[in-house]
Structures are given as structure tokens and as C-alpha cells.
């Protein structure tokens, strides 16, 4: 190699045309052009927007947030009056969106996990049934399913003939009524005790694992769950059960007391859970199937039971495949909760980007704020899931 080959002197081509053929020069030029085009687009849009807004006489800026909204909201987690401001509307809508997502995500996860595992069961009948569910739900628009669930809820009896589950839970075409816990001051003690128990349990289980790794002795596996259950239970007993239940009571036209979950929330929640559950089921199935068959055979060959094979060999590997797409399903569920606007559940899109926008006409500010909210939620969920994903990722040596 050395000395044998003489470096070939390449005469650099000169002139503008030749320069333009140089990939580096081209790259820089191309980028300048793209940036300029983008800036021009922004300038064009902003210019038009200013001109149009002036022509329409719409005010700009965020002052409208402090003006009274003037409309009522049918379901709200925080107290809301029509005299409250648009900013309050934003909070109410935001909380309602987060509320339905928080109710939907765990339910969809449980449904999806169950269905995904059932779909891989050796039982022919069960596989077919779950397959039917998945294929039926995945290929029909979510919005249609939500309408369908609402139509189903409307076939329930009216308020005076509500379906009762004991004295505590009532269901009719307008709402689902649940008992409401009323907390007393002793609840704080219970919450603190539960948190302390959780921290203690985490520390202890880490120490147990370290001990097992060091010595091979299997620690008593009842200690950690025992701590988590017994300490809060003791706290509850010590404070003398610091809550009571407020039962919904049938009035003349409607129920009073308790927690009232409106039909729209039930329909939305059902739609979101059934729909997302089908997608998660497919993800779980694909994840488990992605673990190569040799792993299972090897595990069985070294004498693990089928259950141990599943828990110790297959699932830990499958989880890594399952987590990222499941995260995006959680995000989808949150974003899909915006379909609430079609059935009248007051989420952020319905009340803020809908009603508030119609009242104030300040489209740019309101849509900007709503989009910012969704972006923040997306980023938060993916941050937590990425963190969890890193914690379970394969540690390569």
C-alpha cells in the first residue's frame, strides 16, 4: 500500500457551474433556500393574518382569557359558573380531557393485555372469539363506535326506572351514579402512611433482590406485599376509617348526591377503551410472538414449567417489544378523547376550542393554546414511557 500508489492529483474543476455540482455547496444552497422559503411562508401567513384580523375587527392577545365565559359546562371536576373566565374554561376542559384519559388508559391496558394473551391461548374457540373482537373493532371508525355506544346507552331505562345495583350504584340513560367518598381529616394520616409503606416496600424489595443476587437465598416473598397492605390498613383502623360514603339518592326527576358520570363520558370511555384495547391486544400478541420459539423450547428443555417459561423467559423479552407501540396507543387514546366534541362531553376541544372560540372569535390564540396542551401531554406521556422503557431495556455488556 505504502509508496506503491501515487496519489492522483485531481484538478478541481473551476467555474460556477462546477461549484454547483459540489454536493457540499449544493447542500448549503439547498438549506438556505429551504430556510428562506419557510421564513417567507411564515411572513406571508402572519401578514395575511394581521390584515384579515384587522378587517374582521377581531381583537388579538390573551386578554379574553380574563373575560367571563357566559356559558355553563355540563360536567366539571372543579366548580364552574357561567360568570367564570375563559381561562377557567380552559382548566375545566383540560381536567376533563385528562380525566377521561386517566380513566381510559388503565382500562384499555387491562383489556388489551387480557385479550392479547387470550388470543395466544391454545384454545381454538377463545382465539376465534378474541380474533373476531379485534378485527371487528379495529376496522370501524372510533367515532362511529362512540355514537354506537351512546345509542346503546340511550336504550337504557329512563331516570325513574333506573337499574339499581344495591343502594349504591344506579344506571339510567342519563348517567351512571356511584357512591362518593367523603374524606375526614384522618385521611391525611392514611395517605402519608400509604406513601411511607410504598417507599419502604421499594427499598426493601431492592435490598432483597441485591441479597438474592449476592447469596442465592430466596427471600420471603410475602414481606413486601405485606408491608404495602398492612401499614395502610393499620392506619385506617387507627384513625377509625376516616371516610364515609355519600350514596346517590333518587329524587323526583334526577338523582342527587354521589358521583354522577354523564352518559357522554360513559359512551366516550367505552368507545376509547374497547377501541384502544383491540390495538393493544394486537401489540401484545405480536410482542409475545416476536420472542423466538427457541427461547421457549430452551426454557422448557431446562425444566422450567410453562408458567415459569412465560413469566421468566418470554414476558421479560416481549415487554421490550410491547412498550414503545403501547405508549403510542396511550397517546392515541388521549388524542382520540377529543372526539368528545361530537357527543357533547365537555373536553378541552369541545368547550375551549369549540364554545370559547365561537364566543370570542380568537381562533389563533385558542387553537394555539389547545395544541400546546396536547403537545405537553404527548411529551409528558412519552417522557415517562421512555423512562420506563430504559429501565426495562436490555442491558448490553
Amino acid at each position, binding site marked *: 500500500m505504502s509508496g506503491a500508489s501515487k496519489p492522483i492529483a485531481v484538478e478541481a474543476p473551476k467555474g460556477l457551474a462546477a461549484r454547483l455540482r459540489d*454536493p457540499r455547496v449544493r*447542500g448549503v444552497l*439547498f*438549506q*438556505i433556500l*429551504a*430556510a428562506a422559503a*419557510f421564513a417567507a411562508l411564515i411572513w406571508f*401567513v402572519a401578514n*395575511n*393574518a394581521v*390584515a*384579515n*384580523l384587522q*378587517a374582521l375587527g377581531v381583537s388579538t392577545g390573551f386578554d379574553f382569557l380574563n373575560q367571563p365565559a357566559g356559558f355553563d359546562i355540563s360536567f366539571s371536576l372543579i366548580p364552574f359558573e357561567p360568570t367564570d373566565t375563559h381561562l377557567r374554561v380552559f382548566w375545566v376542559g383540560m381536567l376533563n380531557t385528562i380525566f377521561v384519559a386517566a380513566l381510559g388508559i388503565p382500562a384499555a391496558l387491562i383489556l388489551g393485555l387480557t385479550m392479547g394473551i*387470550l388470543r395466544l*391461548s*391454545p*384454545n*381454538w*374457540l*377463545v382465539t376465534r*372469539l378474541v380474533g373476531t373482537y379485534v*378485527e*371487528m373493532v*379495529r*376496522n*370501524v*371508525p*372510533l*367515532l*362511529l*363506535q362512540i*355514537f*354506537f355506544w351512546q*345509542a*346503546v346507552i*340511550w*336504550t337504557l331505562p329512563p331516570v325513574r326506572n333506573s337499574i339499581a345495583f344495591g343502594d349504591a350504584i344506579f344506571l339510567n340513560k342519563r348517567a351512571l351514579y356511584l357512591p362518593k367518598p367523603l374524606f375526614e381529616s384522618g385521611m391525611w394520616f392514611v395517605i402519608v402512611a400509604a406513601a411511607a409503606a410504598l417507599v419502604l416496600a421499594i427499598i426493601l424489595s431492592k435490598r432483597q433482590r441485591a441479597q438474592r443476587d449476592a447469596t442465592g437465598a430466596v427471600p420471603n416473598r410475602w414481606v413486601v406485599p405485606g408491608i404495602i397492605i398492612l401499614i395502610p390498613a393499620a392506619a385506617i383502623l387507627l384513625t377509625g376509617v376516616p371516610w364515609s360514603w355519600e350514596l346517590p339518592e333518587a329524587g323526583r326527576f334526577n338523582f342527587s348526591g354521589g358521583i354522577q358520570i354523564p352518559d357522554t363520558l360513559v359512551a366516550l370511555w367505552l368507545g376509547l377503551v374497547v377501541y384502544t384495547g383491540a390495538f393493544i391486544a394486537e401489540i401484545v400478541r405480536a410482542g409475545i410472538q416476536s420472542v423466538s*420459539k427457541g427461547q421457549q423450547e430452551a426454557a422448557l428443555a431446562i425444566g422450567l414449567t410453562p408458567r415459569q417459561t412465560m413469566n421468566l423467559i418470554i414476558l421479560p423479552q416481549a415487554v421490550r417489544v410491547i412498550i414503545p407501540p403501547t405508549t403510542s396507543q396511550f*397517546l392515541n387514546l388521549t*388524542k*382520540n378523547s*377529543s*372526539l368528545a*366534541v*361530537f357527543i357533547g362531553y365537555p373536553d378541552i*376541544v369541545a368547550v375551549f*376550542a369549540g364554545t370559547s*372560540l365561537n364566543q370570542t372569535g380568537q*381562533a*389563533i390564540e385558542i*387553537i394555539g393554546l*389547545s*395544541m400546546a396542551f*396536547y*403537545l405537553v401531554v*404527548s*411529551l409528558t406521556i412519552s417522557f415517562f414511557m421512555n423512562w420506563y422503557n430504559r429501565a426495562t431495556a436490555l442491558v448490553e455488556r
Partner: protein
Amino acid sequence: MSETQNYAPGQHPDLAPPVMAVGPVAWVRRNLFSNWINTALTILSAALLFWMIPPLLSWFVLDAVFTGENRQACAEASGACWAVVTSRWEQLFYGLYPSTETWRINIAFVGLLLAVTPWLAPQIAFRRQLVWFSLAYPFLAFWLLAGGVGLPTVHTGQWGGFTLTLVVGVTGIVASLPIGILLALGRRSSLPVISMLCTGFIEIVRGVPLIMFLFMASNMLNLFLPQGVQFDLLMRALIAVTLFSSAYMAEVVRGGLQAIPKGQFEAAQAMGLTYWQSMRFIILPQALRTVIPGIVNSFIALFKDTSLVAIIGLFDLLNMAKAIVTDADWQGLSIEVYVFAGIVYWIVCFSMSRYSLWLESSLSGGHKEAN
């Protein structure tokens, strides 16, 4: 003891295998009753089926009413009132399109089937001619549907029902794939400005629900355009749906691009291919092939998402169904109409997913290990 028969060594006829090892009995044992969990599951699912199928069957078919002028026709029946669908199917499929002109939609639909065949079945006869036809088809279809030049004009406000769903879905699919590919290439580009712009667009779009974009299209698009320039509603919906799904498409394509080994890029460069040549001939054919299932999934998602255009006041299949439900003649029959609309959506989406499965297996060309 009956008489014994003697066989020479090796002459004994083969015995039938034990009943418990082959045949239906063994199949049932293996697949339905292999252990107690399995048995319990079987009994549970069988109970579920027995509980669900007879009422469903009688609701769907046996006790259903299929024809009638209004809901009085179904007053007696306990089953579904399909009369609402049979008497309103024209609206469900053609929207408010003038009924004397619906033949144009029918021709456009047949044309659509012709136009997609060369892409779906690469081995078809006259493929070259069909490809030319499908390139011309968008213009042809627009002329047929909108009118002008010899045909009476039909304003897009009158388009509706399944026709509108197809228009939005097909336009979105056709437009979002190339835009998505460009965005994916841009995101992977080594030029920082390009990659930043593309990444920003993709991530913002994916972080926000489609409804927000439709709201934007209906409330803000006209603010951003010079005064006097107006897009009609359908156009705004098309822009919103296309841009939205192109971001998802871009992520699918990026997955495919990342699966291509670096050597392929380097080899293409070493051969002296330009960037676009190497993408066109080397990278994209491989990358797209690996992500066909993802692309088809995006198509399906897009087709389902077309139902959201109702928010800006378009009457697609679902919104039309909703409008029929609120009609005084048919009030209270929402489940029937929604079930019917659901079946239509299901047929389209399910065929797409089956087609992708078939394509995947026919393209894998023996790469896939037999399982």
C-alpha cells in the same frame, strides 16, 4: 378368544391410529379441553356464544323488517328496522347529489376500481395502459363528480355519504404517501435545516389530534390566506387530512429507511449515483417493501379518520347516518343506521388489511421462515 391369525414378519397390516390421537376427538381434546383452564375457557366462551348468538340473529335477520316508508313499518317487529337503510340508501351512498346525476358517481367508482388494479396486481394484463389511466383518473373523476365542460355542475356541498368518504379517503391516501416519503427523507437528511423543519412538522402534527387540524382548517385557514382567497370546505378537509396523515406516513417510512443497512447507502454512493438516484433505485424500493404493513395500516387509519370531517360540516357516510337518525321519520333507529355504516367501513378497511397480508406474504419471496 377368536382365532388368532399369524403374519409373516413385516406383513401385518397397519393398524388405525388410536382414536384419542388423531381425528376430531383428538382435535377437540387438544384445542378445547387440554387442561382445566382451557376447559373452563371453552365452557365460558360457549356460554357466551349461546347467550349472544340467538338474540343477535333474531335482531339482525329473523325479527327484522327490511322495507317500509317510515318507522311505523317497524312498530310491530322486535328486531332491527333495516327499512331505514333500504329507504335511505341513496343518501347514505350519494349524499345530496342530484339523483339524475348519480350515474356519474357510479362511473367514477368503476373507474376507481380500474385505476387501482395496476397498483394492486402488478402482473395484470394491459398494466401499462392501466397505469396511464390511473394517472389520468384523478382529473377524470374530478370532472365526473364536479361537472363542468359538458356536464351539469354539482357543487361540492352536495357531495356526501359514502362517495364523500371515498373522495376524502382516496385523495388523502394518494397524496399522503409521496408527501410522507419526502418528509421521511427530509427527517433523515444530513442537512440540519431540512431535517429540523421536517422533524418539527412531523412531531407537532403527531402530538395533536386530527380534530384540532380540522378546526384549524375551518377557523384559521382563511385567516392565513390573502383576503378574498377562499377554499371550499371539502378542499380544507382534504388539506387537513392529507397533511395530518402524511406525518404518520413519514414515521412509517422512516422506520423502513432505518432498517436498510448502511452499506446500501454507501454502495449506491460508490457507484456514483446521485442522492435522488440512489433513493429512487436502491433505498426506497427496499425500505417501502419492508413497511408495507405499516403503510396499509396508515391507509386504514386515514380511511377511518375521514369520519371526523363531520366536525367542519361535511356530510360523509357517518355524518349522513347521523343526519338520518335525527330525521323525524326514523327517530330512535340510530343503532340500525350505525351498524350499517359500520359494516360499510369494515368491508373497506378489512379488505385493505387482508390485501396487505397477502402482499406481504407474496413479496417476502421465501425470506420468511416457515412457522
